[in-house]
């Protein structure tokens, strides 16, 4: 018995030793070995974030097999990449996470010669703060963060972030379970910049949030549980992304969406190739395919997030009318693809310095205690 225990511990030590030292080197050296076999590309995106027919279409056209996986959030993706568990070629993180990955030297520069469809991406979505020189990314979708409310449960038109902190709506509000977005709502309500690193401002925003929680404003802190709760009329007010609002609207026509007057966050999710990618060529073929107008139209119709492809964005109303036999409500189109005046009051998230991220995390934990 003693012997087996000793054996087990030895083995475990040996194994952990391995894990610690040799994995990065291994990843690098095995990279070039598998050129002769079947062509593959490993993609990691978000759940329900693609029209899956596109995957089959791409496989048929190119003969490249797509391993399509999903991660739950930018942070979960980051964790997968850091632990070495995620063996991906293409990922689709959001702006601030792209900045962080670039900073940590985890992304490969793209060869845009292999991605001719990049030319179709509107200039508005190029040269943004996370990739100012356009070396690493091809935008996938974009959208806005806003307030979703049930017009039968509130008796006023909501236009301000105040609603997320108002005692009047005690027990009726769903706060987002994501420190960045939740604190952004509070920062915006106070008139501060969502990318501020000023500790006093962040603490003030936290106080606003904690005070509202103390007063019982929040029914719950939610992420995707929001769909069931808002669709079922279980809560009056919440905040989430425009594309998801459109999905909820199909099940509950009383829901309304607003980008508050104080401004909001707008985000871009973009395709990137990891430095450790073993199928760079295939990865670029995939990115080029997805950046094309047809793929963007199909995606836009399926996930209700706006496309960065100028042609697709312009053609979508016509595409909708042709597919469904009725014209697309202009109001809905403007929610999906926010017009310039709305976008002007929105800001992209930037990657925050480590101290600020730690502050966010500590405050967020404090809120839950």
């Amino acid at each position, binding site marked *: 018995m003693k012997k*087996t225990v000793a*054996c*087990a*511990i030895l*083995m*475990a*030590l040996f*194994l*952990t030793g391995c*894990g610690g030292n040799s994995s990065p080197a291994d990843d690098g050296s095995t990279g070039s070995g598998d050129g002769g076999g079947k062509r593959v590309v490993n993609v990691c995106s978000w759940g329900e974030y693609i029209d899956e027919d596109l995957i089959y279409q791409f496989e048929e056209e190119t003969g490249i097999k797509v391993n399509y996986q999903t991660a*739950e*959030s930018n*942070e*979960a993706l*980051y*964790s997968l990449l*850091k*632990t070495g568990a995620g063996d991906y070629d293409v990922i689709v993180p959001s702006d601030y996470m792209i900045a962080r990955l670039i900073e940590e030297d985890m992304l490969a520069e793209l060869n845009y010669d292999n991605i001719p469809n990049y030319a179709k991406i509107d200039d508005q979505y190029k040269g943004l703060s996370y990739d100012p020189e356009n070396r690493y990314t091809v935008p996938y979708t974009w959208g806005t963060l806003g307030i979703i409310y049930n017009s039968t449960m509130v008796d006023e038109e909501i236009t301000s972030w105040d609603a997320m902190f108002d005692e009047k709506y005690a*027990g009726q509000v769903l706060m987002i*379970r*994501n*420190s*960045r977005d939740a604190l952004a709502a509070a920062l915006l309500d106070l008139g501060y910049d969502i990318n501020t690193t000023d500790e006093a401002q962040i603490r003030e925003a936290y106080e606003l949030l904690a005070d509202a*929680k103390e007063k019982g404003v*929040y*029914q*719950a*802190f*939610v992420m995707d*549980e929001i769909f*069931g*709760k808002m669709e*079922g*009329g*279980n*809560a009056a007010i919440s905040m989430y992304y425009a594309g998801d609002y459109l999905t909820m609207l199909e099940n509950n026509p009383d829901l309304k969406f607003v980008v508050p007057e104080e401004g909001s966050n707008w985000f871009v999710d973009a395709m990137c190739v990891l430095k450790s990618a073993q199928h760079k060529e295939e990865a670029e073929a995939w990115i080029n395919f997805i950046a094309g107008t047809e793929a963007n139209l199909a995606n836009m119709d399926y996930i209700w997030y706006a496309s960065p492809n100028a042609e697709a964005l312009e053609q979508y109303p016509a595409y909708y009318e042709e597919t469904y036999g009725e014209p697309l409500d202009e109001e809905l189109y403007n929610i999906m693809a926010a017009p310039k005046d709305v976008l002007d009051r929105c800001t992209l998230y930037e990657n925050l310095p480590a101290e600020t*991220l*730690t502050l*966010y*995390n*500590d405050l*967020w*934990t*404090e809120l*839950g*205690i």
Partner: protein
Amino acid sequence: MKRKLSFLSIPYVIWMALFVVAPIIMVVIYAFSTADGGFTLANFARMGTYTVVFTRSFKLALIATLICLVIGYPVSYLMSREGPRFQRIAMVLIMLPMWMNFLLRTYSWMALLENNGLLNQLFQNIGLIDLYNRIFGTNLTFFRMINTQGAVVLGMVYNYLPFMILPIYSVIVKLDHNLLEAARDLGANSFQVFRRVILPLSLPGVLSGITMVFVPSVSTFAISKMLGGGTELLLGDLIEQQFLGGAYNPQLGAAISLVMMVIVVICMWIMNRFGEGEEQAVMM
């Protein structure tokens, strides 16, 4: 004979080493490291901040375990006294919910307990809410059930109750009936038979039942997130946040996990002292 057996245990020993011992060692290493790999105790210094989360988690898990015991013991006892046909059917009914995915089951509870959910609609339609309002002079449109600690406990009890019933049942059903007869022959009434014979002999089952309910309850995060509304963190949430939250801090996550494991082991050790002498009383 002995040799053959140890040969057969090799796959399991390898399994244990790979997936039980090695991860625990990694947790320990992480818990004592800084982000650059140096040695530190700082991760534990922060533990004081989380006292509330620890007590909340242990409190809720304890309540859930007690409820499971109070419900589970009589069920196991009565079941074991019925005929084999009844036992089989009862067993299937107890196991049936477990054939469904855990998350799906918990998700269904969300739909039941929501403010505008099925139960509240039922109460509304049968006039229960009106009645309550008239008696207490309140003005409710629904009973608040979801997003409370009660809902979290309910979720734990619902999901882990079979883990209490099964070990107790399997111990009681194997009790030697001669012992019970002997006790009666010696003049014990039925309460005494239960108190002096059945209860002590079923203690190993109770102890493993408690372990099997308490341990997953104390570390759950899905239940608290879905039924508790995420307003009050439990240990599972706190640990998850260190890995999947905004500030990626696996070292702190490992430290919290380690402290939790140590507390659980101490709890189990104390509990097993009560079952001293009952050789079968294993810690799972």
